[in-house]
């Protein structure tokens, strides 16, 4: 610390160059995974369709049966899986940034438990109205998120990451207790509830895709908009204020975007764990930091869930497993492996 600040030095562009290369390689890798996963999802299933016939269908010259299977069933289901994975991954990335908590995921802010309780009520009390599940689950997710934010708010002080986490834990505990109560009272309907709470894309069609994509577009847009501010907020609220960041507004935007993304995902696929928590970590390890994290995480979340759904469909065919089981089985061990290798966390 012996020279004054105004010293001008040679610009070091090599680090920036390496970063771009790493992000480009990471993004290419996950996009390739999605493309291969999409092709496999369209071709494989209860009826295997040769690749040539898949191409014919996609170019409008396929047979009627193949066209129906691919365009009405497998394609919308695969796109729904990509969008849900994308939504959950961005939601987790946003929450980990604003709460400065590496364990933050959509479950932390009550969204998951809110959706689960609303779905459980429908499945237990109004099983004949299962068609209402997506909209009711979304409403439940939003109500729970609003409650968590309001509880974490203090007049004059605003919200804080710590109060947000504690409020999320409290709301999750209460909602979890009510879900347990309902499961006890309606024990005969537990299988349907369990299947929903483990997540599935069985029977998801274009209507579900239409429910998802506006949230994905809006969520990605909001996340990219506030991305520079989120990086500053990771240094703490005081540092962010002194860097000119509107902390409370940014936290509210991130929280709202995360809730909408996770709520829309839960309303379509049920509860798919692991993606929101682990994908941002996996991508940080791959990218070597936060640079380019949001877009690459979004694509990686889509790729992981697409492949998980494919395995869920094929592993025990013709029976289908909940996709949440697969995401946990694939991602958990891989994450542990990376934790052992990662220089960051030694």
């Amino acid at each position, binding site marked *: *610390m012996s*020279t004054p*600040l*105004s010293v*001008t030095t040679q610009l070091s562009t090599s680090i920036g160059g390496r970063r771009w290369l790493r992000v480009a390689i990471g993004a290419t890798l996950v996009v390739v995974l999605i493309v291969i996963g999409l092709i496999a999802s369209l071709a494989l299933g209860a009826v295997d369709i040769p690749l040539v016939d898949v191409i014919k269908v996609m170019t409008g010259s396929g047979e009627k049966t193949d066209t129906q299977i691919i365009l009405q069933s497998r394609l919308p289901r695969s796109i729904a899986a990509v969008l849900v994975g994308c939504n959950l991954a961005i939601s987790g990335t946003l929450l980990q940034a604003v709460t400065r908590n590496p364990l933050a995921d959509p479950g932390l802010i009550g969204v998951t438990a809110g959706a689960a309780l609303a779905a459980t009520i429908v499945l237990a009390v109004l099983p004949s109205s299962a068609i209402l599940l997506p909209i009711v689950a979304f409403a439940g997710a939003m109500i729970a998120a609003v409650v968590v934010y309001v509880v974490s708010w203090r007049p004059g002080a605003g919200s804080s990451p710590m109060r947000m986490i504690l409020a999320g834990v409290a709301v999750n505990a209460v909602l979890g207790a009510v879900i347990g109560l309902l499961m006890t009272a309606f024990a005969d309907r537990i299988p349907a509830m369990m299947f929903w709470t483990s997540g599935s894309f069985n029977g998801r069609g274009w209507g579900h895709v239409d429910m998802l994509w506006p949230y994905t577009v809006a969520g990605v847009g909001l996340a990219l908009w506030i991305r520079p501010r989120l990086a500053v907020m*990771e240094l703490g*609220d005081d540092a962010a204020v*002194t860097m000119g*960041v509107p902390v409370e507004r940014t936290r509210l935007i991130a929280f709202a975007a995360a809730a909408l993304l996770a709520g829309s995902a839960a309303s379509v696929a049920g509860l798919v764990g692991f993606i929101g928590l682990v994908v941002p970590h996996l991508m940080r390890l791959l990218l070597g930091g936060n640079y380019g994290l949001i877009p690459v995480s979004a694509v990686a979340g889509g790729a992981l869930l697409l492949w998980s759904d494919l395995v869920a469909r094929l592993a025990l065919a013709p029976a289908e497993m909940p996709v949440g089981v697969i995401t946990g089985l694939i991602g958990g061990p891989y994450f542990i492996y990376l934790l052992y290798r990662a220089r960051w966390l030694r």
Partner: protein
Amino acid sequence: MSVSVKDLHVQLGSNHVLKGMDFDIKSGQRVALVGPNGCGKSTLLRTLCTILKPSQGEVRLEGELIQSYSRRERARKIGLLSQSDVIPMMTTVRDHVSIGRHPHRSYFRDRSSNDAAFIDAAIEVCEISHLADRPVERLSGGERQRVRLATLLAQSPDLLLLDEPLTGLDLEHQYALLHLLEDLSQKEGRTLMVVLHDLSLAMRFFDRLLVIHEGKLVADGLPADVMTSELLSEVFNIQADIGHEPATGQPVIICHRQG
């Protein structure tokens, strides 16, 4: 950058922390804030950079009310090295320091060559070049303090507020920082307000002392005029004399055994 504080009161909950403070600081001055724990030093710095809102009174920068500046304008003029040690996840030293450029960036001009020059200079000045690619969470407390200082320098504000900046630094880096602060004010004309607990260092390296006690400014002036045995007794509750090092003539506080 000149600072003017008039009748400043700050209340945190039911605690009236600052009870009416008035002072003016000229551009390029090097001011040490001293006082016992909990007297309001950090609260004053946090109020000057708008983290806290005063319950009464006003703060002016170059004659303009601080609220009249936009957030980004303020951030380009005032920087704070706070006591909090929040460690961001998986962030390299260079990334941490580059965050200091946030107030100077626009959304569509994320980084510029000018940015890189400031970041490189701050990293070099704080002697953390060898740590640039390492994650902040794996550094020692003193190294992290130098990273946070480099981030503040990359921000390049005209008014630097430093809250106990020597915390965690070894003796070599304490003196290096104090000499750097001298350079920043003398060569670059930056204004400095620094909270210090080492009164001898405060007297030696700063050209003005503000002594705060129980939320009030109780003394303000040249170190040699302000620091007296009476003040040490009244404010810090110690029996001490002001002596001078035989070799250099620098002032030192000589404490007597209490009781």
